[in-house]
């Protein structure tokens, strides 16, 4: 425990590495979906649509899945 704490200076470089990693992830998203070649408003449009669809799916899963799984269990047993 004692030898795994980071000094204040190392914390800065760790945060910088973390932000670089997030930037790298964003670049991967842009490259693999060809958004890298599109204009900023097109990127916004596509990302908004994607996040909208994904968030709707996740929200529906959170709200409805427990009930569905329970009724499925009742049906099986």
């Amino acid at each position, binding site marked *: 425990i004692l030898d795994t704490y980071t000094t204040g200076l190392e914390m800065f470089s760790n945060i910088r590495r973390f932000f670089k990693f997030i930037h790298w992830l964003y*670049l991967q998203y*842009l490259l*693999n*979906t*060809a*958004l*890298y*070649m599109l*204009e900023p408003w*097109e990127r916004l449009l596509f990302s908004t649509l994607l996040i909208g669809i994904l968030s709707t799916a996740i929200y529906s899963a959170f709200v409805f899945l427990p009930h569905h799984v329970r009724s499925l269990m009742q049906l099986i047993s």
Partner: protein
Amino acid sequence: MVASSSPPVHVTNVHRRLTSEFHPNEKMGDTVLSPVDENLKQYRFKTETENNSDDGGLQDEEFEETPLYAAILTYLSYAILCLFGWLRDFLRQSNIEKKRGAVDPNAALGFVPLYQSYESFYTRNMYTRVRDIFNRPIASVPGAHVEVVERVSDDYNWTHRFTGKTINAINLGSYNYLGFAEKSGPCATDAINSIKKFGVSNCNTRTEIGTQRYHVELEKLLADFLHVESSIAFGMGFATNSLNLPVLASKGDLILSDEMNHASLILGIRLSGASYRTYAHNDMKNLEEKLREAIVHGQPRTNRPWKKIILVVEGIYSMEGSICRLPEIIELKKKYKAYLYMDEAHSIGAIGKNGRGIVDYFGADVKDVDILMGTFTKSFGSAGGYIAGSKSLIDHILTNSHAHTYASSMAAPVVEQIISSLRILQGPEGKKRIYQLADNTRYFRSKLVDMGFIVYGNKNSPVAPVLLYLPARVTRFNRELLRRGIAVVTVGFPATKLLEARVRFCISAAHTRQMLDTALMAIDEVGTEIPLRYSTRHKSRRFREL
């Protein structure tokens, strides 16, 4: 059927087996193909370079398959680009957005449009978005270093403006195989002196007071260099192919051409009016199958025998980096009495112990190749093309070729550059360049392969295509490399298949080991940031580990 000496029993053999798959184990008479294992061996990956096996090492080629995730991501990228293309086209059509492409004014006046009043879908919506990586203007002689003119776009590459600066970059894109693209040196001095002596233009065609002493000298020198009887030179390489194939072939002939042949060959074949078939790239089994089928069935409707059969191949295929299988083709051609037309545009000067091209590389007899064609643009640092062969062939071309009777004759400095580079090539300085090119090629390619990139083609060809697949990764790669001071040529869809976008490195004898190391470090860095190490046959390694 070509007048062949094969007995009829071979013909009936082929007829029976035409519908079944070609099994090399079955008795097909005496086919020229080596057994299955040797053919498979050429596609298998070899870790060590084979120094002792004579033929297996020369044809050591590798074409790794596309990884599945790369193919899926490429299709996904093109699907998304397509969707946004439709959206933008809709916006342009309904006048919400301004039309930036060419608009034909005739349509407004009630005329039938003279040209397509809009560029095609792909050009408008995918090519133009990243147009800044293609067609870059340069501002210096394209030697080992080149000055790329810097340009900036304010409206997403519909228009460019020059900032006034140039970027000094290592040139991995020019076909400068032997390093003869220089502005000072013996070749340049000879070219300048020839302008002082002969002027620039001859103001006429070769056949009407346009042939100068240097044309005759060039043709004789070229014939001596290639060990053939005679040769003829033309002003344009593309025109050499497209205007001379109609001289050699016409209606009633059959031309068998490789599927990856260059556009000039395809144009020449179509223009000649001969029937043509294509065979799978470098696949000798397929070629023999097609040859036998053609000889058996004859011409399409009348079933008469073909007047002649010509096999059209290239020495080095520039998009694949592969080398044609000359020994097997020569065996095939001798057996079926066909003629061989070899386009050595990229291989003359760049391949072979003495720089004489593919014939030198394989140690074959130059009389076996009936028509040798090549260009001066690549290894000789000039412009133009030539055809070489027996004297009767060249005399026939002299009298019948449009490229000879109607094209204006080659200018003096162009020809002097070729003459002096040919003379240098035959001396010790030329040997040094050839060895340097071979050394650079082997070094660069082996390092790329060891790092884990997919590199197509023969390990000895100075053209090294590295596959990048996704369009966005291709553009990022190109821009990042230019930022690091390396100019490369990346090619995408219409020139290559949709999935296989690539970057094509052209290695030159003018590159020093240091320049190649800089380039490799940059490629390694960029190839790690955007993951470009697709190879599953070789382990991915960083350049510093090699």
